[in-house]
């Protein structure tokens, strides 16, 4: 990197690309060429501020880097003229810069970035960038000065727990695999991130793939394995491509492969693409899938540490867990353990989404409260609505109500609420969302994704879904809530793997905290959030309607009639309750009753 040149990097994470970052990049490239500017143009991964994509960072000699936000292709010419060529700045477009206060600083001030230390800061497709920020120093240190036992002790002392959701102590897990008898052992990185509403691991893989490879190699050294697999969702093509590039670069530079950096230790990594089955996030199902079979879980024990992939001792860790490892080795277990609470150390990455103002990828120290994440980092609820609940842990988790928003983020406190830490999905829900419908949504998901092996999970989730569908359709019966509770208890007891054991959680937590909503649906045939279609009607308010006809044109089923400049009317029999008329009406003349 040349410090005397202007450097521009465009955030090309999946979020950025979805928001048009590739077009921004192309347009900058073109603009630089046509203007004859001397600029080093590159790419980076996810900067975290998904709500402001596309994001572009510019670093000019003698100035701290500035992040320009919402820089869509049409804004590029002004950016190039005024900022790059003119040497000035466009204050209102700057989202972050060290030398000034920006309106979105609250998004960062309570974060602590360890896993995301390099995300958005380096080019994920260049090994030099990773090395320049201290990459592979941890692996070098481990190979040069630490015994296998010392590495395991260090990870144990850090208090790192599995970030896939279950929270099993990582050092302990490594210890089991290290002690297991056998010459051939495997390391698996679980990158089958399947929870809807979760994209932490994808962002890490896209933004800093070498950190995960380095973590895997260190795990391999500690347990005595020379072969690693990354099991990644096929739905993450960018992550898979960047991992492939990173593996080739690391092998070329001697950080992977035979006799790494001249040591006795050899480690190889292969990528296995998942084929779209949520249950494959479960470790025994994942291994069955790598072996080329249907991804169905099996009974444990034997645990993978003793009998895993191809019946060999296997250590499985999640992406985020592994990305923590190099930082711990370099900075020491004590520095990591200094963060967090008594039982939960370090940080946790969350994909903050839903009805929050600033949605994106955030990393917080353990012990921070849900309220701090939603209000301080997330900037509160969109559109001035009321914070109702935070859904954590996806289909295995639950809804934590606003009344418990001061619950700290640690494994045990979250478990007490009936939800779980989970892998890091946090979907914020406002008062326009029906909690019975949220429960139905998750049951619909788990019911489809149940592999079918255990009867209670296969049939039980189906029965629960039917009851929830009935309730949201306004056909709930007395006793439905009790029946749901009974089924939930049976499914939890009678299922082999985490999918079934946790599938009822979204239902149980919503019954626990929002029982009145269930009762309103069942007894009064009313949806308090005005979301369940069978229980609502759209009407036009006479005094507000100016007869502009926008709603009539928007209606896809021709349910709205009325002459121009006269009152319009909705035919409730034709209306499908799609809500498009209300979204489009500028007179605030359409209401749900």
């Amino acid at each position, binding site marked *: 990197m040349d410090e005397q040149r202007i450097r521009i990097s465009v955030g090309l994470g999946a979020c950025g690309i979805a928001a048009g970052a590739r077009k921004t990049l192309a347009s900058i490239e073109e603009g630089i060429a046509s203007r004859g500017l001397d600029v080093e143009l590159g790419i980076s991964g996810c900067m975290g501020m998904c709500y402001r*994509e596309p994001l572009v960072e510019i670093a000019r000699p003698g100035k701290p880097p500035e992040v320009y936000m919402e820089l869509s292709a049409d804004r590029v010419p002004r950016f190039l003229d005024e900022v790059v060529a003119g040497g000035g700045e466009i204050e209102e477009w700057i989202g972050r810069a060290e030398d000034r206060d920006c309106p979105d600083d609250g998004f960062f001030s309570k974060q602590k970035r360890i896993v995301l230390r390099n995300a958005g800061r380096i080019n994920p497709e260049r090994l030099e960038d990773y090395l320049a920020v201290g990459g592979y120093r941890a692996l070098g240190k481990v190979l040069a000065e630490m015994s296998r036992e010392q590495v395991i002790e260090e990870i144990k002392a850090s208090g790192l727990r599995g970030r896939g959701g279950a929270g099993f102590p990582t050092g302990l897990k490594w210890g089991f695999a290290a002690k297991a008898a056998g010459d051939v052992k495997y390391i698996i990185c679980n990158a089958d991130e399947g929870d809807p509403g979760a994209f932490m691991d994808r962002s890490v893989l896209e933004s800093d793939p070498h950190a995960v490879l380095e973590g895997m190699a260190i795990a391999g050294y500690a347990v005595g394995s020379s072969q690693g697999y990354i099991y990644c969702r096929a739905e993450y093509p960018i992550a898979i491509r960047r991992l492939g590039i990173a593996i080739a670069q690391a092998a070329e530079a001697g950080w992977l492969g035979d006799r790494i950096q001249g040591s006795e230790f050899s480690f190889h990594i292969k990528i296995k693409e998942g084929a779209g089955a949520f249950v494959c996030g479960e470790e025994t199902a994942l291994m069955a899938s790598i072996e080329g079979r249907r991804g169905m879980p099996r009974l444990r024990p034997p645990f993978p540490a003793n009998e895993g992939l191809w019946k060999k001792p296997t250590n499985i860790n999640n992406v985020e867990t592994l990305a923590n490892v190099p930082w711990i080795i370099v900075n020491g277990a004590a520095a990591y353990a200094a963060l967090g609470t008594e039982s939960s150390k370090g940080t946790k990455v969350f994909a903050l*989404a839903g009805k929050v103002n600033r949605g994106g990828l955030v990393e917080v120290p353990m012990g921070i409260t849900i309220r701090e994440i939603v209000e301080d980092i997330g900037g509160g609820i969109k559109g001035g609505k009321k914070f109702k609940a935070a859904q954590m842990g996806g289909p295995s988790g639950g809804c934590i109500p606003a009344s418990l928003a001061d619950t700290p983020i640690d494994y045990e406190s979250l478990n007490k609420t009936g939800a779980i830490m989970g892998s890091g999905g946090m979907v914020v829900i406002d008062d326009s969302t029906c909690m019975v419908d949220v429960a139905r949504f998750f049951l619909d998901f788990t019911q489809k994704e149940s592999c079918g092996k255990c009867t209670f999970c296969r049939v039980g989730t189906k029965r629960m879904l039917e009851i929830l569908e009935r309730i949201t359709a306004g056909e709930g019966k007395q006793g439905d809530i009790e029946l749901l509770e009974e089924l939930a208890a049976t499914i939890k007891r009678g299922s082999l793997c985490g999918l079934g054991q946790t599938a009822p959680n979204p239902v149980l937590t919503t019954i626990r905290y929002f029982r009145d909503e269930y009762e309103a649906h069942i007894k009064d045939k009313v949806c308090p959030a005005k979301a369940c279609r069978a229980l609502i009607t759209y009407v036009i308010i006479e005094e507000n309607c100016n007869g502009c006809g926008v709603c009539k044109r928007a209606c*896809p089923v021709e349910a709205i009639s009325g002459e121009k400049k006269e009152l319009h009317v909705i035919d409730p029999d034709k209306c499908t309750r799609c809500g498009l008329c209300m979204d489009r009406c500028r007179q605030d003349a359409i209401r749900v009753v």
Partner: protein
Amino acid sequence: MEAARVEESVDLSVADRIIAEHASGSGSLIPVLQKAQEEYGYLPKQVMDRIARGLHLPPASVYGVVTFYAQFRLKPVGKHIIRVCHGTACHVSGADKITESFSRDLSVEDGETTSDRLFTLESVACLGCCSLAPVAMVGEETFGRLDGVAVRRLIKDYRKQESA
């Protein structure tokens, strides 16, 4: 009739090449199926049979794996695959209505292909761009903050492109 014609025209030499290139050791069934689908667009019965023979597996195991994973298709798909995100964030932002709009405007049910083979409508669990909810992808292109009117416009634009 049309389906039968498609089946007959399958060029099995492609499958043979994939088997030869990727069938190394255990665990190669899924990668082979993934490559085959990349080439054929779906997995015709003859191709599955060929793969079973090539990997020395019973056809039932191959079919079992194919039907277990959501990625594999048994039917040909349209030129543009529309994937509507039904992740949690999209759900609370009205993903159901987006699928409904596509379904109505294309006159197909979720999972089906239009009769002109231009579009296949699918639902996916999560595309992971939650801040743009509700989201859908058409091919490799992502469209965020959708509503029914935007869906209508989108389909119109694609149709116009096709007829141009």
